[in-house]
């Protein structure tokens, strides 16, 4: 018999409260606090990207309830996650930007496998006061705004895309990410593809030199800056736009359509991606500006990173089992948290890659 509020229950409750406070939305996620008996031992540890944390924490909590396997994840940023993975501190890392071949080669411990966990989106948010309808943008206009060439909201090039919208005669204040981030990686990937001047200038990366504007820390920082400052434009992960009720722009995709960031448009971006994979265990494909007609152009995978050779048999088995669960059952929670599920054919390929993970040396 357990007393009404045992220490364990209290701890579980506390963890739930803390997680709920951290999660941007859907606090009910953590109602089912890890229940199984067996003390507080942790089976697997991970560290990395902050953005997918709400989704991951939901996954870990659901998974613990179902299987009793406990996973501890610290959202310390993907750079930190990769460092900890490299040093063997954690069993898996998480990142919004995949490692390059050179970066993988620089990890002496072994070959790192990177699998997509879910599809996410980056949206352009802006503050033009109340009552401004959804704006439309093309990548070259966004690039020129971020290059400092388009400086006024009523610039003819913005007006041409938004017929019938009365644009204010005000200076545009550009907001960017001051910290390195996967969001920046995806955003600059898009600009680099469409604007030669952007490619030559600031370029593509997690952390670049911004020609104009002011910097804010984290998605929440950019969203806050845009929300409190008139005439701003910024880029954030989809969930932060929804949460802060910021208007987000429809962007022109490769097929020439203006598409709003919805779960459907994100899923469309990943359609047919399995045909473009560079290799059987290599899933590093950009979802930016894909040719699917109803695809949102600023989409990307969120990645889980781990060693292809798992020396600890017990941990290795648990990790692979969890990953199998995440890419199948876990996908159903994706849309609730403003992500889109992975396409089915890709899931099959990921499962096949997981089968090839060597366990126990």
């Amino acid at each position, binding site marked *: 018999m357990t007393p009404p509020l045992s220490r364990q229950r209290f701890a579980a409750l506390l963890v739930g409260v803390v997680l709920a406070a951290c999660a941007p939305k859907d606090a009910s996620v953590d109602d089912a606090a890890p229940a199984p008996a067996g003390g507080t031992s942790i089976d697997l540890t991970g560290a990395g990207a902050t953005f997918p944390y709400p989704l991951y924490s939901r996954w870990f909590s659901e998974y613990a309830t179902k299987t009793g396997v406990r996973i501890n994840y610290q959202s310390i940023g993907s750079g930190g996650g990769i460092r900890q993975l490299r040093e063997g501190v954690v069993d898996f890392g998480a990142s919004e930007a995949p490692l390059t071949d050179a970066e993988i080669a620089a990890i002496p411990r072994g070959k790192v496998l990177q699998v997509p966990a879910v599809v996410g989106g980056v949206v352009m948010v802006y503050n033009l006061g109340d009552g401004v309808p959804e704006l439309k943008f093309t990548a070259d206009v966004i690039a020129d705004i971020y290059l400092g060439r388009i400086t006024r909201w009523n610039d003819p090039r913005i007006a041409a895309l938004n017929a019938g919208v009365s644009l204010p005669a005000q200076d545009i204040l550009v907001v960017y990410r001051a910290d390195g981030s996967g969001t920046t990686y995806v955003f600059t990937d898009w600009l680099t593809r469409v604007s030669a001047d952007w490619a030559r200038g600031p370029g593509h990366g997690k952390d670049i*030199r911004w020609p104009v504007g002011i910097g804010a820390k984290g998605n929440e920082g950019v969203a806050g800056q845009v929300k409190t400052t008139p005439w701003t434009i910024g880029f954030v992960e989809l969930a932060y736009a929804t949460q802060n009720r910021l208007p987000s722009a429809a962007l022109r995709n490769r097929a020439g359509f203006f598409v709003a960031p919805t779960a459907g448009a994100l899923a469309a971006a990943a359609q047919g991606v399995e045909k473009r994979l560079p290799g059987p265990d290599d899933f590093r494909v950009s979802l930016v500006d894909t040719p699917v007609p109803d695809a949102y152009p600023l989409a990307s995978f969120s990645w889980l990173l781990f060693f292809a050779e798992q020396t600890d048999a017990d941990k290795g088995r648990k990790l692979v089992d969890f990953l199998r669960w995440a890419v199948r059952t876990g996908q159903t929670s994706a849309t609730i948290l403003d992500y889109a599920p992975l396409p089915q054919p890709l899931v099959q390929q990921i499962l096949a890659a997981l089968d090839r993970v060597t366990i126990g040396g």
Partner: protein
Amino acid sequence: MIGAGDRAWRATTGLAAAVIPAALLLVTVVLVVGAWPALADAGPGLVASRTWDPGRGTFGAGAALVGTLLTSLLAVLVAAPLGVATAVVTVELAGPRLSRVLAALSDLLAAVPSIVYGLWGAAVLVPLLRSELFPRLKPLGRVIPLLAGPAYGPSLLAAALLLALMILPYVTAVSREVIAAVPRSQREAALALGATRWEMLRDAVLPGARHGILGGVALALGRALGETMAVTMVIGNRHDLSWSLLSPGYTLSSLLANEFGEASGDRHLAALMAVALLLLVVTLLVNAVARGLVRSVRSGRSSLEVAR
């Protein structure tokens, strides 16, 4: 004759005292080792250049260094007179009840976490500056380059004002104590010589409290130099050096706070370690200068001589 208890006591306290230099030494060693690749690579460019482009491997923290010094000094310039004045009112002018309330409120200011200051700065101070203060400064900007240029809100000035508020309680608390510590006889003597209350303050009280007040200001300056989160939220985080205080800038600590979590490249990490080392050196230097200043005041003319 030293007993066993004395010996044990001496060993324990000695060990405790050794922790501080050991920790400082350890931090320095770790930073120097971590920063070495960047120091060897960028050399003086690390402070001379203001081009910070991790993607291309260019690391120049010049703008952040200037931003750190500028915001901290400006904050002290604002907070020091304000803090001393508050202390004077609290100790000399206010009645006992008001004095207690003032002291408690000022101490409360020190207890507010810096993230709360940051949130307040971003949500209240910056919009206020943007809509009320900056438009009024605009005409001045045509004559004074310090106030020129476009003003978005997040700026060096916003960071300096927020810092001033954050270090105000330190200046106030220390000043309060040292002003209260000036002997009563000194005040009475001044008054007996026919000094007004203001003359008494100026000639008998403040000179005696001078080195203590300077010490408090030095403490506050040290705190301003290292302050991170609140500054990050209002400074605009931009590697730019312009004459205008209304333009966005950067500080060394904000740079670390922003980039450390996501830095994965070895060179980027080394550059950030170098920035941390730079911050440590700047803080130590500023503290040494402040200490020297305090000592020179203390060893100079005695307070009574100053009071004449």
